């Protein structure tokens, strides 16, 4: 049996080399940072003018920033299955599976790789929000908390994407399924408006949506300062991640056979 340290170091190794790839080509972070920036700039500024959304005494941009942070990670992670299909097509996945690294460690390592990309993007968005003059509680503790939430949420969503990749098998279909999921995940959540304004059936979706918990935790850290719901947010994300990671590990071998 493989020891826990070997298991963890395999996961970290996979993420480390994803980071090295980013270092070789950092332009992708900036390019991918544009879309969330536009959400803040265009959507955020426009909806600030409406003042129709109950944001609990905070400005709309304050309310929105954690939502866009989570969204930017989700957009990276939900399409991570495409990378898996691509690596399968090239042969890299076969090679990786021929090492003694357990399947679940490969899944978690790849998921962490997606998160690592998400973290850099989140930092770009956070910096932009501060430049726009959004009043956020930025201190070492809150930033660390936000980064941890982003990593956990990124792992969660990329496990979902990797679990779907072996079922849908081609890049085009995985891309399609990612787009299909993005819409309900993003709009049936508390990212751009509170769930209190939703009809009941939609609120049910928001409750089982991991994005809501990631947004809630980051909103507590950066905006409201009310940390009481953070433990339940983290537990919800951990449970979702455990389920999705197990699913992805079990389906991974279908990818190559």
């Amino acid at each position, binding site marked *: 049996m493989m020891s826990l340290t070997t298991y963890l170091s395999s996961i970290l*190794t996979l993420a480390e080399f994803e980071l090295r790839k980013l270092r070789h080509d950092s332009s992708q972070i900036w390019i991918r940072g544009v879309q969330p920036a536009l959400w803040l700039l265009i959507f955020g500024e426009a909806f600030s003018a409406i003042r129709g959304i109950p944001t609990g005494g905070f400005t709309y941009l304050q309310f929105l920033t954690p939502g866009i942070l989570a969204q930017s990670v989700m957009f990276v992670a939900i399409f991570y299955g495409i990378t898996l299909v691509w690596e399968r097509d*090239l042969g*890299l996945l076969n*090679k990786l599976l*021929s090492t003694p690294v357990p399947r679940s460690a490969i899944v978690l390592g790849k998921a962490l790789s997606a998160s690592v990309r998400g973290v850099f993007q989140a930092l770009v968005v956070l910096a932009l929000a501060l430049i726009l003059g959004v009043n956020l509680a930025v201190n070492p503790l809150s930033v660390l908390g936000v980064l941890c939430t982003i990593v956990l949420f990124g792992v969660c969503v990329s496990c979902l994407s990797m679990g779907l990749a072996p079922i849908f098998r081609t890049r085009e279909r995985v891309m399609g399924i990612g787009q299909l999921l993005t819409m309900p995940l993003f709009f049936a959540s508390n990212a751009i408006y509170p769930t209190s304004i939703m009809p009941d059936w939609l609120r049910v979706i928001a409750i089982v949506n991991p994005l809501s918990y990631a947004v809630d935790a980051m909103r507590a850290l950066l905006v409201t300062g009310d940390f009481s719901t953070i433990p339940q947010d983290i537990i919800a994300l951990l449970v979702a991640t455990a389920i999705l990671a197990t699913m992805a590990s079990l389906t991974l*071998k279908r990818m*190559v056979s």
Partner: protein
Amino acid sequence: MTSNVVTVENLVKTYPRITAVDSISFKIDEGEIFGFLGPNGAGKTTTIRMLLTLIKPTSGKITVFGVDALTDPAKVRQISGYVPQDLSVDGDLTGYENLLMYSKLYGVPRDGREKRIRSVLENMGLQDRSGDLVNTYSGGMMRRLELAQSLVNRPKVLFLDEPSIGLDPNARSIIWDFVKNLRNEFGTTIFITTHDMNEADALCDRIAFIDKGRLVAIGKPSQLKSTVGGDLLMISSKTPGCGAKLKGLGYQVISNSPEGNFEMLVSNGERVIPRLLEDLKANGMIVESVALKKPTLDDVFQKYTGTKIAEEGETSVEVRRTRRTLRKLRR
């Protein structure tokens, strides 16, 4: 006395519509270069993937250095090296990083890592380019890096799936030399699949012919070739009565044409020629030309299966080139 380090018994892999591997059994000795030779789609890659525990057999038994591949796959992977037919190095990382990543994944101890990476890089002549992104490598360099990568865990058995496919003759001979060296110097057991009979002939101690998922023959290249019935000796002579004379001298003539071309089956053709020429001269026959054709593995394959291996070669070369191109396009 050598020992069997890989044993395969009644291995079967069926997919919904086809039987990819149909009850094959074979054994590989320690330090042997063992080749699987057959056309594309014969079941070579499926077999190699089952040996590497990448896919589960439908039935059958595999042991690698005493380890049961079905019950203890991680242990088999730890002692195996693999160079797949497809790409196995990441173009977005440098050559060095590709090796570092895999030595970490195989759990190579930190203190020996750098030394080991340096030695495989030198071995493959890549030390000068190890800091460059693999996307900038030529096909032959990528292949050498893949071989280097497969050695970072010091495998006891190395699986090479079509190791020289799509390479130019120069790059190919580098790979062949490397494979032979690896066996001669370190005693590594090597399993190769190929559809190239020259490669099988040049490299392998023993060859198994595989066709439509079945093993049709297994043995040393020389043994296999001797089963075809010997060398083909061709002479042409315009002297009348030459055919009858050849038969009279005891040669096994299998064809003769009115123009005076005769074909006969002999063993050790190069030794027969001088004697034959003397015999014919003594009998007043004038020989215009002599040619000798030694049997090839392709002839052997044809004897057992009724088809040739060679014709289908091009498609997978194309596939591999396309993949390499794809890889480069991604940049």
